[in-house]
């Protein structure tokens, strides 16, 4: 599973950081920063929650 983040449409709401703090961060302008784009197995649920809770559709998962 690989995480893709589109910083052009991120609105900086921070839902992803709250859902999966080890995987996502925000830069000074609040835009998403992916800390590790290949999350470990035990982070999968958190990451799926983060993607589902992202209000802007900036996050997606590429399976495989």
């Amino acid at each position: 599973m690989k995480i893709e983040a589109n910083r052009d449409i991120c609105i900086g709401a921070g839902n992803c950081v709250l859902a999966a703090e080890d995987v996502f961060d925000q830069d000074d302008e609040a835009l998403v920063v992916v800390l590790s784009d290949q999350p470990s197995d035990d982070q999968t649920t958190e990451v799926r929650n983060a993607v589902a809770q992202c209000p802007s559709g900036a996050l997606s998962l590429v399976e495989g």
Partner: protein
Amino acid sequence: MSTSTGGTPTIPRHMQRDRFAPVAETQAARDEPGFPTIRTAFGTPARLVTRYADVREVLGDAERFSNAVVPPMPLPDGESDADRRAGQLLLQDPPEHTRLRRLLTGEFTVRRIRRLEPRIAEIVDDHLDAMAAAGPPADLVSAFALPVPSLVICELLGVPYADRDEFQGRAARQLDVSRPLEERGRLAMEGRAYMGDLVDRARIEPGDDMLGMLVREHGDDLTRNELIGVASLLLIAGHETTANMLGLGTLALLRAPDQLALVRDRPDAVAPAIEELLRFLSVVHSGIPRTVRHDTTVGETPVSAGDLLVLSLPAANRDPATVDHPDDLDVTRAIAPHVAFSHGVHHCLGAPLARAEMAVAFPALFWRFPTLALGTPYEEIEFRSATVVHGLRALPVTW
């Protein structure tokens, strides 16, 4: 259905509640095809969207559904539509919206808000001390739920807390749709005049607060009117919403003592409990109505260019298609997706702050007053109707 007569509108259907829940008629609309026609507080016809998937589809697509095209409303003398709109994130579409929002988001990152937590905890403790010294009994709304978020947003923005009676009173009346439109327009204008003075002062001597930051870092990108609009929105959105979450949330938890005990005693129960309270209470009845730009469909329902869509956030958040037993408060459930903070580009800017305030305030309150109880029978507690944000007039408590 509500109608508008003599300039004093009655309560539009999407704001009508049966205590915590949307009225039965609104809940039932989820199961009927299409979108029923209602009237907004301005008396204009609109279509009511209640299903979670439909609400999310509309909120998530600023290209098909606009916040900027709103029906004309009467304006007080000396006020132009451009004045009213300047800096008002909620009344703009991308790309104008994006430009304004990007100036502010840096102030509301999860990390920035974490740094405020110790100060939020102090403010909470001070108010609990004052409540303990003066009571029992107490009115939880005026002693705790309203002053805590008000003081937090004042400090953050750089608004003198000494002015609170003035701006709290004005905000409460401005959001009350049972008041004549002219009066609400005039209140909004007074609010902007008040904020104009603060903006002018910040331009001469910018402080460490958000107004100071905006003037210092974006003084050339923002007009005076935009600064006023942004700051007025933050002041109102920053205290009315969280205040009503704290008041209604305390009442809901007092009625579910096992759940209250979890919030008090188990730090890891707090974050999921707050999401559940956000969902269950959905204090914002609907966001800004969205205008359909071109003929299209939402879910299976055709909508036409120019239609006004009112999105019922509480109905969407109680859709059995997304949550089991949606009408039960259950702070132990796996976090259910919700639209209490909206969705899409207008998703609440202050969400990390609101979450932090609640995460500090609820456990501290229940910890300080382990015997907290209602001071009047539940049936006598007055829910506030007709305001843009759902809430309680007062919450008498004892301990």
